C-alpha cells in the first residue's frame, strides 16, 4: 500500500509531519523536564524527550543511532537517573525548592542564547552540506569504528573503566561512615529518606551503574 506523497488535507510531506511531531514532542517534553515541579515527572518527561529524539534520528536516516538512543538513554541512563531521584527525594516540593531565585535571569539568558544560536543557524552556510539528505549504511559504520575511529573507540572504553572504578569508590558505602570535615560541613536535612535506606540504595545504584556502563562499553 502506497501512502500518498503528502499528508491528506494538510498538504505537507509525511516526513515533515513526522519531523514536526517528533520535534514538538521533544521540545515539549524537554520543557517538561526543566519546568516540572515533580522531579519524578521530570525524569519521565526526559525519557519521552529522548524517545522523540530517537524518532528524529530515525527520520534523519541514522537507524543505528536511533537504536542506541533507545538502549542507552532510555534503557540505562534514564533508569539510573530515576534511581537517583528516588534515592534523594521522593516528594515534589514547592516552587521555591525547585527553582533558584535567579530563574528569571536564567530564562533571560537562555532566551538570548537561543536567539543567538537561531540567528546563527539562519544565516549559516555550511560549505560541505548538500540540500538532500544522505543515508547511512550501518556496515560502513562498523568498518569506520575499527579503522578511522579505532583510537576514540579504545579511549571510550578506558573512559568508562575509569568512570566505573571511581564511581564505585565514591558511591560505595563504608562502615566507618564518620564525617570528617575540615570546617564542619553543614548538615541540612530536607529529604525524607532516612540515612540507612539511602545508604543501601546507594550501593544499588552503584551496581546498576556498573552494569549499565559495562553494557555500554560492549555495545557499540
Amino acid at each position, binding site marked *: 500500500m502506497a501512502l500518498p506523497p503528502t499528508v491528506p488535507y494538510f498538504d505537507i510531506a509525511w516526513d515533515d509531519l513526522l519531523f514536526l511531531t517528533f520535534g514538538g514532542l521533544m521540545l515539549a517534553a524537554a520543557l517538561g523536564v526543566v519546568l516540572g515541579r515533580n522531579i519524578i515527572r521530570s525524569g519521565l518527561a526526559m525519557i519521552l524527550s529522548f524517545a522523540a529524539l530517537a524518532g528524529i534520528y530515525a527520520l534523519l536516516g541514522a537507524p543505528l543511532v536511533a537504536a542506541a538512543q533507545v538502549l542507552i538513554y532510555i534503557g540505562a541512563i534514564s533508569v539510573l537517573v530515576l534511581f537517583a531521584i528516588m534515592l534523594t527525594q521522593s516528594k515534589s516540593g514547592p516552587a521555591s525548592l525547585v527553582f533558584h531565585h535567579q530563574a528569571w535571569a536564567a530564562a533571560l539568558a537562555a532566551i538570548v*542564547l537561543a536567539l*543567538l544560536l537561531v540567528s546563527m543557524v539562519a544565516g549559516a552556510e555550511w560549505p560541505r552540506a548538500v540540500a538532500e539528505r544522505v543515508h547511512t549504511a550501518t556496515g560502513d559504520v562498523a568498518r569506520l569504528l575499527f579503522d578511522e575511529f579505532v583510537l576514540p573507540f579504545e579511549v571510550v572504553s578506558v573512559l568508562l573503566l575509569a568512570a566505573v572504578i571511581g564511581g564505585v569508590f565514591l558511591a560505595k558505602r563504608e562502615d566507618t561512615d564518620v564525617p570528617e570535615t575540615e570546617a564542619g560541613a553543614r548538615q541540612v536535612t530536607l529529604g525524607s529518606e532516612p540515612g540507612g535506606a539511602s545508604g543501601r540504595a546507594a550501593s544499588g545504584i552503584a551496581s546498576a551503574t556498573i552494569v549499565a556502563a559495562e553494557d555500554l562499553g560492549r555495545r557499540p
Partner: protein
Amino acid sequence: MTTDQLLVTLLLALPIGGFALTALVGRRLYQRAWIIAVGAIVATWLIAMYLVYNTLFLNAYGAQGLHFTLYEWIPAGDFRIEANFAVDNLTAALLIVVCTVGMLVHVYSIGYMAHDPGRWRFFAYLNLFMFSMLLLVLADNFLLLFAAWELVGLSSYLLIGFWYGRRSAALAAKKAFLVNRVGDVGFALGIMAIWTTVGTLNFPEVFERIPLLAESGVIQPWQMTGLALLLFLGAVGKSAQFPLHVWLPDAMEGPTPVSALIHAATMVNAGVYMVARANPLFVQSPSAMWLIAGVGIFTAILAASIAFTQRDIKRVLAYSTLSQLGYMFAALGVGAFTAAIFHLMTHGFFKGLLFLGSGSVIHGVHDEQDMNRMGGLWRKMPITHITMLIGAIAIAGIPPLAGFFSKDEILGQAWKNGFVWVWAIGIVVALMTAFYMFRLMGKTFYGPSNVDPAVEPRVHESPRSMTVPLLLLAIPSAVLGVALGFPIGAGLIEQWMEPVFEGANEVLGRGQAEPFQVLGLDGFLAGASVAVAVLGVLAAMRLFGFRVPLLGLQAKPRPAVVERLTDRLRPLYTGSFHKWFFDDLNDLIFVRAGGLVARGLWWFDVHIIDGAVNGVAGLTQRSGRGLRHIQTGRVQNYALGIALSLIVVAVGYFVAGGR
C-alpha cells in the same frame, strides 16, 4: 721643597699635630694638658715671625710672595684643586696678629683654664682653631680658603660649646655655626660662580684674569656685582655683619680666651681679610663696594647702639667688636683697603687685650659677668686695670694709641673718597664707642663695689700666666698705631700693603697718597675724630665715674642721672637693651615659622605622599575584598555567570568579527 716651603707647611702641621696629639693623649696629661698645645703654638709663632720678617722686612719673596703647592687635593676633570699656599705681605700682616694673639691666648689659657676638668679638650680645640686660621690666611685658592673658612667655623662651634653641659652654650654654638653657614652658602656659590666664569680658583690666576674678563665683557657688570656680593655674603657671616651679626654676642658663652682669640682678634677678621684678598674682584663692581660700605657702617652704628646698654661685660665687648668690624667693612667699601687691614691689626691687639682683661676680671670675681655686680676693682686688680685702660683708650681713638691711627685713616679715606655719609655716621660711632667703653671701665673698675659680698674678700689679681699676656698685648695696643701708621698716610703699613692693593687702587683711580696736611682737610678730620672721642670719654666719665691714679683725678658715678636719662629715652633704651629685637625676629621667622613649615611638610609626607602609597595598597585590598563576593558559593550563580560570559563572548565575536 725649599726650607721656606717646609716652614709654611710646618706652620700648618704644628697646630694640627698638636691638636691630634692633645686629643689623643691630652687626657692622660692631667694638669699639664696644655704642654703640647702651647709648645706647638710657640713654635708656630717663632716660624711665623721668621716668615713675617722675611716677607715684610727683607722682601725675600718678591712682590708676589711665596707660592707653592703641597699636593693635588681634588682632581675632577677640569676642576683641579690643589692644596697650595702663599705668603705675601697681606698674609704676613695677618700672621702677625693671628700668631701673636693666638700664642698669648694659649699662654693666658694655662692659667684661666687651670681648674677646668676638660682643659685638654680646650687646648686641643685651640690648636685646631690655630690650624684652621693659619690655613685660612695661607690658602692660595678660593676652595682651600673656603675649607679653612668652614674649619674655623667648626673650631668656633667647638669652643663656644665647650661647656656643653650649659644649654645656653650648646645653643650659642649651634647658632654660631648655622648663621655662619648661611654666609657660607653665599661664599660657596660665589666660588662656583668664579670657577664657572673664570675657570680656575687659584688666587693669582683669578685676580689676573678678572679685570681682563670684565673689560672684555665676558663677565657682565651685573654678573660681577652678583659674584662680589655672593663672596661678600660669606664675609658678612664670618665677620658678623648685619644681618648675620646675631651669632657673635651669643658666642660669648664660650670661655673668655676663646672670645678674645676667635671672636675679637682673628676669626671675625676673616671676612675683612677675604674681601681685601679678593680686592681686584670687588673693585670691578662699584655698586657692590657701595653696599659693602653701607652694610659696614650700618653695622657699626647698630652694634654701638646696642653696646650702650648691655650689662654683661663680654657682651659690651662683643658689640664693640661688631662695631669695629663694621668700620673695617666701611673702609673696604670706600676703597680704603690699607686702612681696613691697619684697623684689623690694631683692633686685633687691643680687642684681644680687652677681652683677656675682661677674662681676668671675670676670673677675679669668680665667674661673674654682670657689670652691675662689679665696681671698684682697680685697686684689687691693678695690672688688669691698667692694661684694660690702655685698651679702652686705644679703642676710643685717643691719640697716640693704636686705635686713633687706624680709625682716623678709615674716616679720612671715607671723606676723601666721596663717602661723606660714611664719614658722618662713622664719626657718630666714634663718639658712641668712646662713651660705652668708658661706661664699661667705670662700671667695672671705678665707683663703689657691687661685688657679691661673699666673693668680695676673695677678689684677687690673676696669676702670672694671665697678666703677662695682658702686658704683652698692651704694648702693641699702645704703640702699633705709631709704628705702622706714622707718618699718617705714608707709614709702614702703606708700604707693606702697597703691592697688594696696587691694582685695586689703579682701578679706583687713586694715585700716590698725598702727604698728610695738618692744617688742611686731614687735620680737620683728625681733629674731629679726636674731639668726638674725647667728648664721649668725658661724658662717660661724668656719668659712671673715673679715676686717674697718678694725677689723683676722680669722679663718682651718678646713677641717678643715668636713671633719668634712660627714663627719658625709654623706647630707645628698651630697643637697645633688647638688641633691637633681632633675635626675636629670627626666632619668629626661622625657628617658629620654619618649624611650622617643616611640620607641615612632614604632615604632607606622611599623609599625602605616603597616604597615596598606602591608599593604592588599601584600594587594591578593598577591591579584592569586593571581588570576593562574586564567589557566592552557589553553583547556579556560577553557572549563570558562565552563561552570561558565554553570551558576552558570542556577541563579542559577532561584533568584532562581523564581516
